[in-house]
């Protein structure tokens, strides 16, 4: 087969299609979105499998689990914090086990390029006691996703593929292999999938009994490699995933000097680690994310007679992503000469709301309406509108996780914050805003929720939303918010005075109000116009 150019995300997606995928589910989130973008395009072309965005990661996971129950192969993909949302079905799917192959792809975001933390999903794989692959390059992303389906079906467990931003969003060439057929329909056993205590206890035992087999697979995996060098036994390196590339980058002119273990599978391949440790005096662990391997090696008491180096020892930074030069330093090599800006002062160029963005008009109206309330607080959520934290708006005081704005505004109001305002986008509202609003409606909390309805998932590139327009209004009403306190504004400069007035009235209402600021994302308007011109 010919080479093709793919993002790391897309290599995973293609691997899944070629593994005989029947259905895939996801919720948009950087750096994982391109997996589903690719699958949706491919499914439209091939019409042999299903690929769709779900309302949130938990739902996506449950949909994939249903496919697996039915004996077919399913992929569910998400960004790292998405797995927090899906943690309930994820943890329990390790107990039910997989019938058809079930692969969960999680893209971590070290350095928080577009995230609120840099949690390391390998801990989740360990927590659930499942198998995990961590590819170091594009071809491996493709191959390991195919292998993940095999492990899942052979062992009857879900399998994780862990990506990081730099692989997800890097493009390179890969060579695909011929695809295989999908599975036929074949139901799972009710006694395995009904996690009543009597069944769950038995299933948990089954999972723990599989651990020896998982370890054997990891020790024997063709994707791991160990090189032992007899000429220099002072230093040995353990590296995983893309961190392996940074090690080789620095040793490319003298690879013969190295004792190097490349880890791409979890549970940790203990036999390979033991062989490396016995061979050298000092071990440097180079891994992207938290010091997962280093901590496992070190434990409480360390390894007798050996020095373990890595992030915990201070040889590599504990936060942020790795880079060739950071690893170079950790290896004790001299830095490359580089140019300096010296006295020149660089201005930063942070991301900002687009010119003509509806959120800008909403924030201007909200800021004006709140001018006479010095004690006001605006709890925000996750989306483009989080950029309202920056000048010239300086409009928001929080951003924690999907849907948190509404729950926090309720808690804040009950603690005495007035006015207590929540700002949330339409897609985030559908993802995780319905349940807290139901709570607030039940209590008729004195707070104002502003739903920024731009009719799209804007920040991640324009995926479809589940709650917009008239349907969104009916959803809010259905949750129990009084119709007369559901107000709809059109955020445009010409409506400024009117919008300020509406927001003020609802701030003054002693109870729950929802103001829906409804205007299509400016990027989507542009895309639509461009498409119309072409047609």
């Amino acid at each position, binding site marked *: 087969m010919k080479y093709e150019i793919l993002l790391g995300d897309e290599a995973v997606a293609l691997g899944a299609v070629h593994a005989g995928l029947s259905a895939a589910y996801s919720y948009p989130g950087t*750096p994982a979105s391109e997996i589903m973008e690719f699958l949706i395009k491919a499914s439209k072309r091939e019409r042999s499998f299903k690929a769709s965005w779900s309302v949130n990661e938990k739902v996506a996971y449950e949909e994939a689990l249903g496919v697996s129950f039915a004996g077919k192969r399913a992929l569910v993909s998400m960004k790292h914090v998405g797995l927090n949302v899906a943690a309930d079905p994820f943890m329990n799917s390790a107990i039910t086990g997989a019938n058809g192959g079930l692969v969960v792809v999680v893209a971590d975001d070290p350095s928080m390029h577009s995230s609120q933390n840099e949690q390391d999903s390998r801990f989740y794989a360990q927590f659930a006691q499942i198998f995990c692959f961590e590819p170091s390059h594009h071809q491996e992303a493709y191959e390991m996703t195919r292998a993940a389906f095999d492990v899942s079906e052979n062992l009857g467990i879900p399998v994780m593929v862990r990506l990081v931003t*730099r692989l997800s*969003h890097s*493009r*390179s060439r890969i060579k695909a292999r011929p695809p295989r057929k999908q599975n036929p329909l074949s139901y799972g056993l009710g006694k395995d999938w009904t996690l009543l205590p009597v069944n769950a206890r038995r299933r948990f035992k089954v999972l723990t009994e599989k651990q020896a087999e998982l370890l054997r697979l990891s020790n024997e995996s063709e994707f791991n490699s160990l090189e032992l060098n007899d000429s220099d036994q002072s230093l040995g390196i353990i590296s995983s995933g893309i961190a392996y590339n940074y090690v080789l980058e620095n040793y490319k002119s003298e690879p013969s000097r190295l004792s190097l273990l490349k880890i791409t599978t979890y549970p940790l391949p203990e036999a390979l680690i033991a062989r490396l440790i016995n061979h050298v005096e000092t071990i440097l662990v180079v891994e992207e994310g938290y010091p997962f391997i280093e901590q496992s090696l070190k434990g409480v008491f360390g390894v007798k007679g050996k020095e373990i180096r890595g992030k915990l020892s201070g040889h590599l930074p504990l936060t942020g992503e790795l880079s*060739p030069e950071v690893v170079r330093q950790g290896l004790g090599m001299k830095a490359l*000469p580089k*140019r300096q800006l010296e006295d020149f002062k*660089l*201005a930063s160029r942070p991301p900002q709301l687009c010119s003509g963005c509806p959120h800008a008009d909403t924030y201007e109206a909200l800021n004006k309406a709140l001018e006479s309330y010095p004690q006001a607080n605006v709890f925000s959520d996750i989306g483009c509108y989080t950029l309202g934290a920056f000048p010239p708006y300086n409009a928001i005081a929080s951003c924690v996780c999907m849907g948190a704005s509404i729950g926090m505004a309720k808690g804040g109001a009950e603690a005495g914050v007035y006015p207590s305002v929540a700002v949330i986008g339409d897609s985030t509202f559908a993802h995780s805003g319905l349940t807290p609003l139901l709570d607030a409606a039940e209590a008729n909390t004195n707070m104002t929720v502003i739903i920024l309805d731009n009719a799209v998932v804007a920040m991640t590139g324009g995926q479809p939303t589940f709650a917009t327009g008239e349907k969104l209004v009916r959803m809010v009403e259905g949750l129990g918010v009084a119709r007369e306190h559901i107000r709809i504004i059109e955020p445009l400069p010409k409506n400024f005075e009117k919008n300020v007035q509406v927001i003020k009235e609802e701030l003054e209402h002693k109870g729950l109000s929802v103001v829906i600021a409804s205007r299509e994302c400016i990027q989507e308007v542009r895309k639509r116009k461009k498409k119309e011109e072409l047609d």
Partner: protein
Amino acid sequence: MKQDIILAGVGGQGILSIAFVIDNAALKEGLSFKQAEVHGMSQRGGAVQSHLRLSSRQIYSDLIPRGEADMLLSVEPLETLRYFDYLSPQGIVVTSSTPYMNIQDYPELDAVLKKIRSVEKCVIVDSEKLAKEAGSSRAQNMVMLGAASPFLMLKRENLIEFIRVLFQPRGEKIVEINLRAFELGSDAAKKL
């Protein structure tokens, strides 16, 4: 043979289109390549960059080590300076002189250009002027690709082929504008 290139610009200036053309030309020429890019929040009018590595041998890191870039190719002068420390001592700068002023504290343009000129090998072209001459100010990215083309390890005809592929879906007129932009950029660089 290898060439490590930092592509720089502001979100929306089309640096990923430059990357598309180079990636595909590299694939056609049988080279290995890796191209790390920025998606998500930073694309909203913020600084964006792409690490593009071409080689006749295996490439390890997706990121170019600071001090190893052979070329710094930028659609915006201030963005050139943001990645200054990536450029190797022998590296070349190919940059636009047209500032993208979406921030309050943009430094004096003369000071920016003076700093860029401190690099021995530098090609500075007025991408806005040339793009307009080609037919659209949006074609500045292809002007800059043209300006870089004499220094790339890729064949000119392959770059041109994939500019066609890239813009074909938007009609022949757009293709022509972008090819003209490429030629004008290329001519300007050769004259310097």
